[in-house]
């Protein structure tokens, strides 16, 4: 690494052709935007699927105009069949967890800002980076293809429990080619994530500029770094699991299928496999995955909040240690998804304790964020509102974890809407709020245009109230024993609960519609937004030292030198109440 601005270095020259510039680009910023665009497409498809499901649940016989065009057999006359409901449920979960919650907060923002925040010109392996995006894109195409296969998309849920997912089309419509494509898609997605994680780790460790010690990295960068370590270990387990599933389906192996199963009157030609093996492998990935979604959101929210509060957090280090603690514990808790799965009941107790203990770092983080709000000079912007909304959601989704961490209570609440409410709030909505906060905060940097703040605030109020209206009642329904993954509520004890579901459906339609405000703001501001200055939020980290949008090689071929901790706010300096990380000036008290 060179010692200073005098030695300008460029790893690669700016591309000129359209393909190299916008399609197969090696530039981490373009790749970040590509991930963001893919996540945006996936989130709107995923949301539309949830609308269809919600409408079907409360008006089961009402035809949905146009639905028959999507699938003639799945929705004859626009009324969906029970299996098509399960297909939509499977595709909704898969799209949201993999292509939205993994891609947007981690891959999209991480790609764009991690190199810049540590003062690098690009990722460590730009070619790998391009490959990871296009591999992710391939995974997405394979998954979407499953919508159009003759016997329909898979119906086994995003968790794809074997043997339902393993025995093939005997298990029902959608369990033929559709389920195979699902396994293939996730297999390919795992490869992409492994490439991406390696790249993030290498970049963080090797490409930090002069003066950028680990402790001087912004919390967002720390979050992406810790997430990439989690992701590397988690996807490395899901990858072979998917391979084994595909082999069970196509090659006649029996990893997950025991002997003596009679499915659709056919005695299955398998023996020796274990359905619980799939569950262990899946959740060994699946639980860390929750933190792959939420840690980057925590990092983004910290970054945005600090800037809005005009002060550093009460402790920078404690937040980072807590994120590491959560990352570490995330590998010791997967069995809490399996309390009533039939695994040894002693293991349930063993898994319960680290699950309860994860509350401790999570609480410390929450208290640090809230304690830092005290006595701050909080600026209210669309970005900071979403960051505050994240805090509220994280608490709401977190406390319901107290219940589900306990095997005894899980006997009653497992597989009910209580669980659906819990994970939507804590990993769905909270993580998405992190993405919104990041978008409103970094949009000016990424595009060179300011976003409309009034529309941003309106989007926040509607989304914040709306998501509470959707997901809080899920908990109440769960307490009443409302089972999840039902395509219709026909049981005597479920029928009386339908009015609550109707309320949720209406809230979901309205909240979903409010996202069009965001989409409009995004597109309109991209072309018509006021030009963005280099540092509109008076922020301290390196991404704000360069013009908006940043030039191709970020720092104009120079290596910035870092003199300070990332968050010099509430100080006296020539710039005001903050000091940029690359400013040689010493802050006054």
């Amino acid at each position, binding site marked *: 690494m060179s010692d200073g601005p005098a030695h300008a270095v460029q790893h690669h020259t700016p591309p000129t052709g359209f393909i190299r510039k916008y399609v197969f680009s090696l530039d981490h910023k373009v790749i970040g935007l590509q991930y963001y665009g893919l996540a945006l497409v996936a989130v709107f498809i995923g949301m539309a699927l949830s609308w269809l499901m919600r409408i079907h649940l409360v008006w089961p016989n009402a035809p949905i105009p146009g639905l028959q065009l999507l699938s003639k057999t799945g929705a004859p006359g626009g009324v969906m069949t029970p299996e098509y409901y399960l297909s939509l449920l499977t595709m909704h979960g898969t799209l949201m967890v993999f292509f939205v919650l993994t891609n947007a907060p981690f891959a999209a923002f991480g790609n764009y800002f991690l190199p810049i925040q540590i003062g690098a010109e690009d990722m460590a392996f730009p070619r790998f980076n391009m490959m990871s995006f296009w591999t992710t894109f391939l995974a997405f195409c394979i998954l979407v293809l499953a919508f159009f296969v003759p016997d329909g998309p898979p119906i086994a*849920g995003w968790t794809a429990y074997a043997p339902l997912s393993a025995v093939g089309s005997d298990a029902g419509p959608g369990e033929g080619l559709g389920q195979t494509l699902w396994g293939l898609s996730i297999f390919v997605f795992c490869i992409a994530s492994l490439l991406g994680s390696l790249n993030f780790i290498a970049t963080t460790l090797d490409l930090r500029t002069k003066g950028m010690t680990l402790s001087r990295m912004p919390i967002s960068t720390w979050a992406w770094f810790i997430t990439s370590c989690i992701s590397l270990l988690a996807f490395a387990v899901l990858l072979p699991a998917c391979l084994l599933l595909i082999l069970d389906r196509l090659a006649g192996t029996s990893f997950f299928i025991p002997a003596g199963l009679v499915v659709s009157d056919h005695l299955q030609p398998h023996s020796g496999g274990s359905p619980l093996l799939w569950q262990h492998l899946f959740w060994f990935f699946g639980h860390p995955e929750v933190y792959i979604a939420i840690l980057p959101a925590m990092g983004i929210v910290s970054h945005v909040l600090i800037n809005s509060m005009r002060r550093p957090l*009460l402790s920078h280090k404690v937040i980072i240690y807590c994120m590491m603690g959560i990352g570490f514990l995330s590998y010791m808790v997967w069995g809490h998804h399996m309390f009533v799965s039939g695994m040894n009941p002693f293991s349930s107790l063993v898994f319960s304790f680290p699950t309860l203990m994860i*509350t401790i770092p999570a609480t410390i983080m929450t208290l640090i964020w809230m*304690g830092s709000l005290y006595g701050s000079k909080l600026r209210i912007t669309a970005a900071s509102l979403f960051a505050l909304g994240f805090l*509220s959601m994280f608490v709401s989704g977190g406390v319901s974890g*107290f219940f589900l961490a306990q095997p*005894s209570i899980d006997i009653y609440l497992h597989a009910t809407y209580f669980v659906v409410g819990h994970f939507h709030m804590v990993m769905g909505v909270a993580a998405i709020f992190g993405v919104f906060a990041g978008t409103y905060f970094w949009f000016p940097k990424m595009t060179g245009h300011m976003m409309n703040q009034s529309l941003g605030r309106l989007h926040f109020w509607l989304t914040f109230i709306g998501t509470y209206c959707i997901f809080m009642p899920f908990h109440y329904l769960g307490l009443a024993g409302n089972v999840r993954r039902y395509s*219709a509520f026909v049981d005597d004890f479920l029928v009386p609960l339908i*009015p609550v579901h109707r309320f949720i459906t209406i809230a979901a339609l309205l909240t979903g519609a409010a996202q069009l405000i965001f989409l409009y703001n995004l597109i309109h501001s991209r072309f018509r937004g006021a030009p963005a200055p280099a540092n509109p939020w008076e922020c301290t980290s390196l991404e704000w030292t360069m013009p908006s949008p940043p030039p191709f090689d970020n720092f104009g071929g120079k290596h910035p030198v870092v003199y300070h901790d990332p968050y010099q706010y509430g100080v006296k300096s020539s710039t005001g109440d903050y000091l940029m990380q690359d400013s040689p000036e010493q802050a006054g008290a």
Partner: protein
Amino acid sequence: MGKLFAVIVTVIALLSAIPIVTHRWYGSGISLAPPEDISTHGHAIDEQLSETMMEAGLSFLAAQLVLAFFVWKSAERKGEIKTFPGGAKGLVIAALVLVGTEMLALGVLGQKAWANVYFKPAAPDALQVQAQAGQFAFYFRYPGADGKFGALHPDKIDEGNSNFFGLDPANDVDSRDDIVTGELAIPVNREVHLLMHAKDVGHSFYVRELRIQQDFVPGLDLSVHFTATKVGRYEIVCTQLCGLGHYNMKAYLNVLSQPDFDAWLKQKASEQ
């Protein structure tokens, strides 16, 4: 704008608490509470649930209200930055002590409720019933007068001829008096040992009133045991996604007095 946030968060927090306290959906008669427990082990689960609800509810309200208050006070504030009394150290210690104790207590107390269900073996004189789950129905089997279940032969399953379990009465004496039914009838106040068998894919056995939920796992011999304390008819539903008919996979649990149960079993035996 910060004040608006504070007000909205406060209103949301208070409104969210109402159905938890009243156990009703706002202004309606829709019950949102767990139904009355009809098992001997369920009260321990219910107590654990209330205990947790208390702790979670208070944490929820406290955190939301403090968040609202701090945002109210600090939004667009002028003047110097102030630091929270005690700083990070105080908060870390508070979290470690308070939450650590809270979680440890929940974990330790909750063990008992779990142990009641899973660590105590079924009584030797418990009524043995086998449950079979398959797409998309439950079937139950009683061992008959000999007290022995006949062996299962998956290749002999023939639903058209009502051989749901794959019994082989021609060659297997034990299976000849087995009683197969579509509902689970049990005597009140007597322990039942339910032996669980999955025919095809994963399923689950969930009776809300019994506070029992247990997966059926293909290839695994699992069992649960419980004692029902109240005569009545309750729904058994499947809670493990098992295919297109999952939503409609159900059976009834019929808790009968001992004489009624004896009569029911006798009648079923004669119908086989």
